[in-house]
């Protein structure tokens, strides 16, 4: 993959600006962020090469740099005319968690817009209370026994789930992946298409780069990964490790798997703080761990010493960002993931293969948000104005 990276200062915040080009059309769509305090990132990828198929960023086509936003709520269905009047989809994701609830809102919005056009989208969007690849394959097998037009899965473990996806495809079911974790052709998976984040490695790397810069490229860092085997968490952690390895005065002292829970993240951070009195930073690779890390750092009274960077848009985490406890957060556009997942599922159900009507990977954006962008995020996402 080739990545083009740019950095610039904007209103006191760091801005990552990524540009992209849609393969096939050969047109560049340059976009950048100008929101106060926000850094925009669709991905590092400028152009997807031919071996990897087409990639369409969510904000593809935006020519004005002013119009880019962290989360797009103003979606409209594209011009594709569905062949049927009613569709029935099954989606399963890793675990019940507010992150995926945001995806659900995008799905609901898309289904509503289809209903206004006279097309009914029935769907199930279900997950267990704790991530489990075994539970997921059981859900997929159960769904295969029912009459769904498309089955969508947010892959819990590529090695365990891919064979089941292939088995279902072999039986004639139409299977797509979505949300945070893909299982692609290179993983030996035959799924039809993916909608979601494909730049987890870059998200982890960019957050860590921001952390390193803040620490003046010196100091000890701990990493909270998340769920073992979950591609998105592991990729972000890998990105973080690779970036830290570039700087000789920086050192990774601990790597822990917190199972995407606030409680474990809190416990692990307490341990880091006890074991390393000179700990300088913590990289958090999922939505729960920045919250756990921030709580532990505040409790230890070391919020001025330890720099935290993390992922996603948890309300409590955004408050910590606003208060300067967390230094930066990578916010994914979950709403668009949900909306586009339903659009792509309709096309798959109609027998369309990736190509003219939709890409094999519909990629959504991640935006790095800093302290002076936190209030605006709270307003946009949670209606908090004060």
């Amino acid at each position: 993959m080739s990545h083009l990276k740019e950095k610039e200062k904007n209103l006191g915040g760091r801005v990552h600006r990524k540009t992209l080009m849609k393969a096939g059309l050969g047109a560049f769509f340059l976009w950048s962020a100008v929101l106060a305090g926000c850094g925009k990132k669709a991905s590092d990828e400028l152009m997807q090469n031919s071996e990897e198929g087409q990639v369409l960023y969510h904000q593809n086509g935006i020519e004005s740099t002013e119009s880019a936003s962290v989360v797009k709520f103003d979606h409209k269905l594209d011009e594709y005319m569905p062949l049927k009047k009613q569709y029935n989809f099954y989606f399963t994701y890793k675990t019940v968690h507010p992150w995926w609830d945001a995806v659900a809102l995008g799905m609901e919005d898309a289904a509503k817009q289809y209903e206004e056009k006279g097309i009914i989208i029935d769907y199930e969007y279900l997950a267990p209370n704790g991530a489990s690849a075994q539970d997921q394959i059981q859900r997929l097998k159960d769904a295969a026994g029912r009459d769904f037009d498309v089955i969508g899965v947010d892959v819990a473990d590529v090695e365990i789930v891919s064979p089941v996806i292939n088995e279902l495809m072999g039986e004639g079911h139409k299977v797509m992946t979505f949300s945070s974790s893909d299982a692609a052709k290179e993983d030996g998976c035959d799924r039809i298409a993916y909608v979601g984040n494909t730049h987890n490695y870059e998200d982890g790397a960019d957050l860590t780069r921001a952390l390193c810069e803040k620490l003046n490229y010196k100091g000890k860092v701990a990493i909270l990964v998340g769920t073992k085997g979950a591609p998105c968490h592991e990729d972000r952690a890998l990105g973080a490790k690779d970036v830290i390895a570039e700087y000789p005065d920086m050192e990774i002292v601990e790597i822990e798997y917190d199972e995407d829970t606030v409680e474990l993240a809190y416990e692990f951070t307490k341990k880091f703080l006890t074991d390393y009195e000179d700990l300088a930073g913590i990289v958090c690779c999922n939505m729960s761990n920045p919250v756990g890390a921030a709580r532990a750092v505040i409790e230890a009274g070391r919020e001025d010493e330890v720099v935290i960077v993390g992922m996603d848009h948890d309300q409590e985490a955004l408050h910590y960002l606003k208060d300067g406890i967390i230094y930066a957060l990578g916010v994914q556009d979950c709403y668009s993931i949900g909306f586009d997942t339903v659009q792509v599922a309709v096309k798959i159900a109609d027998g369309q293969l990736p190509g003219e009507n939709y890409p094999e990977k519909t990629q959504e954006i991640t935006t790095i948000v800093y302290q002076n962008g936190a209030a605006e995020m709270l307003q946009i996402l949670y209606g908090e104005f004060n």
Partner: protein
Amino acid sequence: MSQRATSQAVNRVSEFYLEELAGRRAQVVSEELKNNFTYIENVLDILDDSNLKSQETLRRFLGKMKKLYSLDKFALVDENGIVYTEHSTVSGLSHYNFLSEELTEPVITTANLYGAKKQVILAVPVDNIVFQESRIKVCFIQINIDGMLSSLTLQTGGNETYCSLYHRNGEDLTNGDFGNFKAGNNLLSALSDAKIDKGFKYGEMEEAFKNGKSGQIAFQYRGLRETLCYVPVEDTNWMMTILIRDNVIFDQISSISTDMMRRSIIQIVITVMVMLVVFLVLICQSRRNARILLAQEKADGDRIRNAFAQIEKEQASMENIHAAMGSGLWSMEFDERGEMISCSWSEVFRNMLGYDSEKDFPNRIESWADLLCQEDKERVLKEYWDTVRDYSGEKTFDVEYRLITQNAGLRWFHSAGRLSRREDGSPITFVGLFVDIDDEKKLEEKLERQKIDLEDALAVAQHANKAKTTFLNNMSHDIRTPMNAIIGFTSLAAAHIENREQVQDYLSKITTSSNHLLSLINDVLDMSRIESGKVKIEEKETSLPEIMHDLKTIVQADITSKQLEFFIDTADVVNENVLCDKLRLNQLLLNLLSNAMKFTKPGGMVGVRIIQRGNAPEGWAAYEFQVKDTGIGMSPEFLEHVFEPFERERTSTVSGIQGTGLGMAITKNIVDMMGGVISVVSEEGKGTTFTVSLQFRTCSEPVMQNIVPELKGLRALVADDDFNTCSSVTQMLSTIGMRPDWTTSGKEAVLRVKLAVEQDDAYAAYIIDWLMPDMNGIEVVRRIRRLIGDDKPIIILTAYDWSDIEEEARKAGVTAFCSKPIFLSELREILESPFIVKDTKGQDDQETVSFQGRRLLLVEDNEINQEIAQEILKEAGFLMDVADDGSIAVDKVKNSKPGWYDLVLMDIQMPIMNGYEAAKKIRALENKELAGIPIIAMTANAFDEDRKAAFDAGMDGHIAKPIDIPKLFELLRDILK
């Protein structure tokens, strides 16, 4: 002067106008919210089992209700947090904040839908509704707040008067701007920066908001003078706010007043003149017309009076006819939009329902709809609305249903009606008739019931008859088959008596057939005794781990010989010792397991699982025993009869599988006697799962749940291809304070160990399954040992007999073996002393007891039985003496020297003196040594009560005939050691 008057007018107009506006709008919002709660209640009332049959029926119902009440969303939420709506089933919706806690009363809230528009949510707690085995806990509706406010807003053209809703803390509840106040701004915070007019105080307004009081405030904000009126919305924490700009009213009133003055003077002059002329003309004209009109009015009056009299007469006749026929009229009228504008019920109909006046039974459709029987309600209302909305006019309303009457409970009515329609098909009037058909209907129902009862009785009789005939045929076949083998092979053995090898083969076949014949007879007798109430449940302290391990030991040989895959595990068992009838629990589990093995082909899977449920009262524990197989399964037709006696899906002649068809009936009876429930799920060709739910009294404290300090925080790895075992063992490890990881793959287990070692966070204990598909447990252990060395314990967990591989496993590095299913107490014990090489498998350390030279007194009246017993016992080394009845036996013991006889084997049914009496007499002998001689009942009286009677008579043991030789020797060994 004029300016001041205008200003005062502005203030007064603002005050009255705004108060009126705000008050009315607050009332509208409050009414709308109340109406919506009523809609929810109505919907929950008509929601019945037919809507809860499947996801499709529920979605259809929710969709109809959403449309009926024009809502944005109508949803139900179950106990697992799953939200069901017209088109979706979704888990974990954290943005509905009211779902985070138990809802105890109705709530009104707004949802911040992740930056999308705010919506009003009305939620109510729900009871007694179950959908797909989960309790529905909440019903909520979602209303578009912008839609709700759009009908209240006054913003048109330049008329700048605004309406909005705020929370009492000033938070904006809408999605639009409120005059100069931007969407989302806190009103109180914004006003704190405004310049407040004299006579008003910001603090008063803040206080009024806090306490939900009405009021007004005038201020200057962003260069504009404005007046804000606020009124609380009843039953909410909301404030309805109306904002008007002073300049608007000031300008309008000023311009209107100047203009009005000028025009008024001109108008007054012209009007007075015109009125004078008109007045004079009118007086003349009216006098002339008065006479003509008087005559016409008199004639019209007579005609109208006659017409009314005629109508009243016809109505009275019609009412009489309806009263006589037991029928009543109704009518409804609709406007151009199809909305009902009036409804009328006749007095006859009211009387039929037991109401006297319109006050008791008002002319509203709800008066009738509320009395509809719940079962009929949805059908009848659907029929009604379908007829009204059928603009083609083809549909007619013709339904039968039940109504709740005032004095006579539910009664059947027949209702029919027709609609007159406009040109576009919209309804004008809907007129119809009610007829009380209760008597006819009840007669019909009675006849129908009688017919069904007769048919059922006939079917039951035919079925029982057929089942018994089938049973007799089967029994005849099943008894003849082993009998044929016994007789045939006995003849063959006699014919080849010289050929030892052949005779041994025949004898082995005779033994097999005899055993089968015995189990057949046992089943038949057991069933007969259960049905006659002779079997009693005897509760004794019982160890569930012991039962499960015994069960596994008993079936192990068959599992191996049938090449079946065997799973046995536990989940959440904290009470391991209970009071129950061990024998019967064993019997029922063995019956289920034997059945599973019997009907599963080699290579198939058989599994047993015990789960403790948390729903038992104090002092009790609830368990679920699941016996599962991947065998031939059962047809849905047979499933209905599986627990009936004498039922078999296929006869043994067809299936080749022998059985009496009584096993399941016996099992069901035992479960019933134990106060439990048995259920079965089965699919032909896929397998069967029996689930037995039982509650037992606990007889010891639960297994210690506390953390083992030495193990706290240590990591443990569980590797087992059975997910259930992983889950259960992992949970137990967490309970005792360890940090467990699990995997269903042997290869992955090795990888995880490698990773853990690299991260310097190695596992402290390993629990590995022996048989895993990708790599067997011994190989996994060998590889793990290479990574971790010898000091950490590795335990092999298996449902199979490990004796054949024990040596190899020890060499590979296995510390201990542990038999499935593993219970918490066992796991604690193993891990608390991990380095002690131990096996949980019970090793028989039987004390060797020699029978050589021991003397037995055999008390037996039947010569053949004497001969058989003597032969067997002499061969074992005993010296034998025989007594033909109890009396002789008592004499022989009484006259013997103490120690002469080592033991007495006592038959029960004997002439002269039976075994019980003889035993009592021996126990009553004066010589204590003689009186204490061990006595074992050896009898064909094989039931539990016979066993009890033997012990009551003072005997030390009981063995049933036909004699099971190993059992007899085991008993003798136990007593003589």
